């Protein structure tokens, strides 16, 4: 499985993260998204006419939407990460996958303006990002009241992986996460999953690693 990847892209990170959590090997092909705009090159447009990354190639199968890649990898290697046969769970998973596109547009858009000086209406992008974060916070608070940690059912799913990166990187677009306690607890649960990997701006939980001072005193 080949992933056309950019290290700073939260959408590419979704695919790398799920592959790592499910211990699926990926052949990563770095794309010079910025400043090279390699995703608009003839070679990559031949794979994906939309000119976006990530692109996942597995034999004859070419996927250009990260949510579809998550569904494909989970379907092959971690069926527990897909909502089961319960129609409510299936629908909620679709709901959050669609919601993740709002996060990409709003928080991801603000991030591209702030980090890479893309053109965009920054205050409008930030305002719709804050509206989405408020919605997510309320939903996760409701999940906590019922004893749940993740977005759908009782276990982490591709819905969590689809929503996590753009939320975690909201501060890159100058949108604060300080005021969302249920989002904080949810992000911590994702970062504590075995096999979790980092990307620039999303670090691992250092307290889960051995204490260097205790090691030194052995």
């Amino acid at each position, binding site marked *: 499985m080949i992933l056309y990847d950019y290290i700073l892209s939260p959408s590419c990170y979704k695919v790398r993260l799920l592959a790592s959590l499910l211990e699926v090997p990926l052949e990563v092909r770095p794309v010079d998204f910025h400043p090279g705009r390699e995703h608009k090159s003839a070679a990559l447009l031949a794979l994906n006419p939309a000119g976006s990354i990530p692109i996942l190639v597995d034999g004859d199968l070419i996927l250009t939407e990260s949510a579809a890649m998550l569904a494909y990898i989970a379907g092959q290697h971690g069926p527990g990460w897909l909502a089961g046969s319960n129609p409510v769970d299936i629908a909620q998973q679709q709901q959050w996958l669609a919601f993740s596109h709002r996060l990409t547009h709003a928080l991801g858009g603000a991030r591209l303006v702030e980090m890479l000086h893309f053109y965009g209406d920054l205050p409008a992008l*930030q305002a719709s990002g804050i509206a989405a974060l*408020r919605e997510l*916070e309320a939903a996760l608070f409701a999940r906590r*009241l*019922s004893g749940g940690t993740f977005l759908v059912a009782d276990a982490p799913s591709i819905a969590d992986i689809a929503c996590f990166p753009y939320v975690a990187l909201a501060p890159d677009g100058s949108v604060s*996460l*300080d*005021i969302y306690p249920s989002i904080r607890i949810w992000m911590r649960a994702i970062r504590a999953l075995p096999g979790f990997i980092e990307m620039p701006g999303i670090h691992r939980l*250092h307290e889960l690693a051995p204490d260097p001072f205790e090691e030194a005193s052995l």
Partner: protein
Amino acid sequence: MTPVNPVGDGTYWTMAAKTDAQWVPVAVSADILAGTVVPARLPTGPIAVWRSATGNLYANGDRCPHRGMRLSHGFVRGETLSCIYHGWRFGTDGACQKIPAHPSVTPPKTINCGPLHVAETNGVVWAAAKEPAEPPQFYPGYEALRSLVIVSTPAAIAAATNATIIDGAIQTTLGGQDAVLLMSPQGPQEVFILVLARPNLNLADRLAVSSALEALRRSAEAVEGAA
């Protein structure tokens, strides 16, 4: 240029120092898990509130004395708080215990992260820069449900609930349930709200209070937007 981000944009704002020795509601107890640190605010500035592995609560300034990194980005190990940047480690008294780059150095007592006073009542975490004379206000028959920030003013929030502000709080009903809104202004246009509800509510009633709180925010922010 006016900051578009309502909260936590890194702006260090200050208000009158008269609030230094007052208990301020800063978080819901249940939102600070053992072994974690969270950001919060006092009128005097940003703070980091953390719960040790054994469940004890501490607070200090949200700034590492080394390079100014926010300690709320750091991590808790056992009964200590560490900075994410260079790992300076602080104890429950706020004193620096370890400097990883100089493992053989015992840090001088003068290096500390500005310890604050904390207390918990009704599932509310309170903090104060200087020790208040009295314990924090206790609301019998209530417990903390959730917190949020309303981009508005206490007066607009009171108007949206048809209630008056007493001791910095509003007593009202939300979703048909008794509720107390503790308020902590975060600046001229932001109010941290911590809602208290009756402890024996069932799941549906708690959700109703939470939904009504969201509706109150829409209403209070619309009032403010129209002004």
